[in-house]
């Protein structure tokens, strides 16, 4: 029985990077959104930091989706 550990570990590594990285990014984005929403409710101006963190996190998620589409659609290669 031969297991291609090399390929398997590569798959695991890349999977962790994207599969756990995206929920992390998204979670930070959602947390920032939540702080913004709380500020707006208290009639305070939302902090620029929260807005930019949210925007950056979600932009990174969108980029990952686009990369996934690039991988899936052979016409792009």
């Amino acid at each position, binding site marked *: *029985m*031969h*297991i*291609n550990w090399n*390929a*398997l570990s*590569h*798959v*695991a590594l*890349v*999977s*962790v*990077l*994207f*599969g*756990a990285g*995206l*929920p*992390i990014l*998204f*979670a*930070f*984005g*959602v*947390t920032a*959104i*939540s*702080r913004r*929403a*709380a500020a707006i409710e208290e009639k305070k101006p939302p902090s620029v930091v929260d807005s930019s963190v949210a925007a950056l996190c979600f932009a990174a*998620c969108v980029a990952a*989706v686009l990369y*996934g*589409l690039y*991988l*899936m*659609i*052979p*016409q792009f290669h």
Partner: protein
Amino acid sequence: MHIVGGLIEMDLSFLVVVVIITALVFDFTNGFHDTANAMATSIATGALRPKVAVALSAVLNLVGAFISTAVAKTISGGLVDDSKITVPIIFGGLVGAILWNVVTWYFGLPSSSSHALFGGLIGATWVAAGRDAVNFQNVVQKIIIPAVAAPVVAGGVALLGTFLAYRITRRARKTSVHDGFRSGQIASASMVSLAHGTGDAQKTMGIITLVLITSGSLAKGSGPPVWVIISAGLAIALGTYFGGWRIIRTMGKGLTEVESPQGFAAETSSASVLLASAHLGFPLSTTQVCSGSILGSGLGRRRAQVRWSVAGRIAMGWLFTLPAAAVVGALSGEVANSGNAGVVIVAVVAVAAAGAIYAASRRKPVTAENVNEYPSRAPATPATPATPATPADPATPATPADPAAAA
């Protein structure tokens, strides 16, 4: 018989026509069996309404079928000696796979359609061409090892993603978190669906193309004709839209109670593992990846309870996929090999069996309306000593163990 496809007109024998139809039926079962992989958690968390979820998944499967038509060059990928494969063997293999898909659907078990197909082909080839025509080393290599690796990798990734997502958002407002991840789930589920569509419809296209080549209707090395691409894409999309609600219920509600951050983590894990495995040379089965991810997302949230009895039943299903499909495939292939009468007998018996299972499923139907109601039975974990068996508690109406709906 005369089928017009693009510019090619072909005369096809009775057997070839039957096998093409059977392949499309397999594609259909592949679709409804795998809807759950992408959409179960989105339906469970309410990110998408059930009907919308299956419609979206169907469209993405159809799109996937069209954008990726790089079909397999061999039917079995080296599991059996491809030179020994005849059209009746393919027919037998397909029948074995279809019946296994229908049986596992009845029990609400996610199981790999590719494994069922390979099992059917192995059985049919074994009986028709002898044991030597089966490459057991490749069976271990391409089926058994990935089947163990897939849930472990995907489950680990989803566990980590879920745990961290809850940790990061623990101070955020519950509504923002749940609504946010719910929106994210639409994208993550769509990615899983599309990944599925670019991979699975090709299996059927490959089979039909190779049948046409074997029967001399197409030149060696041809790609799939347009009508094959369209019909295979439509078959899998229709199957997806039909919705394997029984399996969706098991994966969305049965394995564990899924909240939207878990659903998102499970789906991103599935999409990442599927794409990574496809591009880094270690192909993994969609069903095993997605089941592993959902299990992992259950383990990653502290208060979530994983029903290990359900997980165990799913694992048993995976264990039996290959041998069960192989036995049916062997029988069907053997009978079909005797000529057109045999083919008709196999087809009639298979349709009757599938029809009987469908009829049985109607007694306790699972539909878009009740898909999110997992029958509450005795808790999966052994009851704590603090709760003695109370006879007939009027507050909780006793739910008789119902194997059809719960299994």
